[in-house]
């Protein structure tokens, strides 16, 4: 990604199992494809059995492929895009922490 271009971003919403190692499966998948994760938010849900992850990623043609690869991971239960969240969702979150 050229630093001078203002990238369009997407928010990917993952429902995942909550146990040690899940995060490394997901971040590893991005790293192996030289694809940067701009932001990650992860919270446990369903009484700690599952987690919800929001990933902020730059929009590229590779995104569809990445989503399909994410969906293949055994610990990933659901993948969807969150177009309902405002583009500055993470930016505002960043200011509050």
């Amino acid at each position, binding site marked *: 990604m050229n630093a001078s271009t203002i990238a369009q971003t997407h928010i990917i919403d993952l429902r995942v199992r909550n146990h040690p*190692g899940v995060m490394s499966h997901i971040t*590893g998948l991005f790293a192996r494809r030289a694809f940067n994760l701009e932001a990650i938010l992860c919270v446990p849900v369903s009484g700690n059995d599952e987690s919800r992850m929001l990933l902020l990623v730059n929009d590229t043609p590779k995104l*569809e*492929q990445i989503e*399909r690869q994410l*969906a293949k991971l*055994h610990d990933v239960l659901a993948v969807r895009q969150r177009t309902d969240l405002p583009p500055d969702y993470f930016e505002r979150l960043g200011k509050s922490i």
Partner: protein
Amino acid sequence: MKPKTPLTTMTKKKYTGATLLTALLERQGIRQMPGIPGGAILPFYDALHTSPIQHILARHEQGAGFIAQGMARVTGRAAACVATSGPGATNLITAIADARLDSIPLVAITGQVAQSLIGTDAFQEVDFYGLTVPITKHNYLVRDVRELLHIVPEAFTLAESGRPGPVVIDIPKDVQIAAIELSDDELPAPGGCRPTPPAKDAEIDALARMLAKAQRPVLYLGGGIIAANASALAHELAKRLDAPAVSTLNALGAIPADSPHNMGMLGMHGTRATHTLLDECDLIIAIGARFDDRATGKVAEFCPRAAIAHIDIDRAEFGKIKRPHLSIEADAAEVLQRLLAHPLLHAEPGTPRASGWLARATALRDAHPLRHPSRETAPLHPVNICRFLAETLPSDAIIATDVGQHQMWVAQAYPFRSPRTLLTSGGLGTMGFGLPNAIGAAFAAPGKRIACVSGDGSLLMNIQELATLADHELSVAVLVFNNAHLGLVRQQQELFYGRRYEASRFETTPDFAALARAFGIRGHSIAANSADPLGDIAAALAQPGPCLIDIPIIATENVLPMVPPGAANNQSIEHAGAM
């Protein structure tokens, strides 16, 4: 009527993690399991002592991993292998990565240091979970003995379902020792291949319409056609369409070599005939193929005139390299069965377009055979050896290869007649693959003749498994195409690096026949000046039991045709002197 005795008993049985794992593997149908013991996996080995599972002691964990792969490649079912923590586990990595790239179902079980020691840099501790994240379909670090109850069957289910692949179960020593009481009905059902949802009717319709309309269709078969046990159906489709079929390395054998529809291998070492057909075709039906660069050459120039229909069990393959016009995510056998029953594919056979197209394919194939000297003048030319082996070995023999020139000669020249008769490392290209895979095949297919065609460079990478071969006196013949070089490296240096031969020639070449004898099996050296070297090979093969046959080949012989890496397939170098 007598009252039935209840099938399950509520009496609790005592297990340790190790005996539970053994029981679960037995229920999975594991009968033989290669591996090497060590401290962190010894409780499990202790449990194996009273188990009907036959442990096969390899001489290197990579050998154990590839022996298991050989079993899985021959049967299509997940095989298991075992190693201890630390170096035992890391030695398995190449076999696991190889299984990942070729979609081979494999369950690798490793010992791990006790949980109290994890993260302390304990003796023989390595983060095997972390190491295997990128090379497995899924992996587990077992944290409690109870978890084995769902992890073991789930591991086999994952390995065999959808696109097959390797799964790792890393088990800390304390989990293997932990005691648990279970009643029989608490033991889970064994895992196995889960059916894939069927294709939609509309998709089958759309595919049938595409095929009915195409003037010049080509089937492009990948390893998935073998994994799906759909080879016969693919052959039937080729016949129905009067279409030629090209195969990737891992699909060889799907269409019998002597079928008029078989065009052999495409890609880097495919013939001019396959490249031309793919340039001319107007529809390519890719089945279980992933458009690997070794097959496609420069992607932008692959099948430039063709619409693409892509059938694959893995949705992530669609559009990864080439955007298909139609993609169907389903089991290939199911799609082909329904397609063959479709009314549009029952139109009158022998329409002018169809027969003309297959005739074109046949003419191309006849016009571009492999160029090689005759058997009379050069019996030990590798192409002649491969063809001679095909005449000499039983027709259902299984051929394992290593990686290098010999592998490509086998792929080009050995007439594979049925699926699962070629075991070869396609995606990862692993030297050292052949011998242990051949051993695994011999265990999985008793009674069959197994040949491992290797090179002098490849064989040395797992030569210690000759001892495993000797242990079990398996019917494996190892044929060494010996040119005292890393042949494919030498060839690339000749063709693309200005003949600067750096590190591709071996200063010292061992006496392979003597090595074989040192390991306890028959060793033969074929003399380059023998009056009948092929007869010498046949005589060596005729004796029962394992053997090694060292065959001298000319060091400067190249595998041709060859597409330069990164070039379009139609840029292939056809023969020596064409540069």
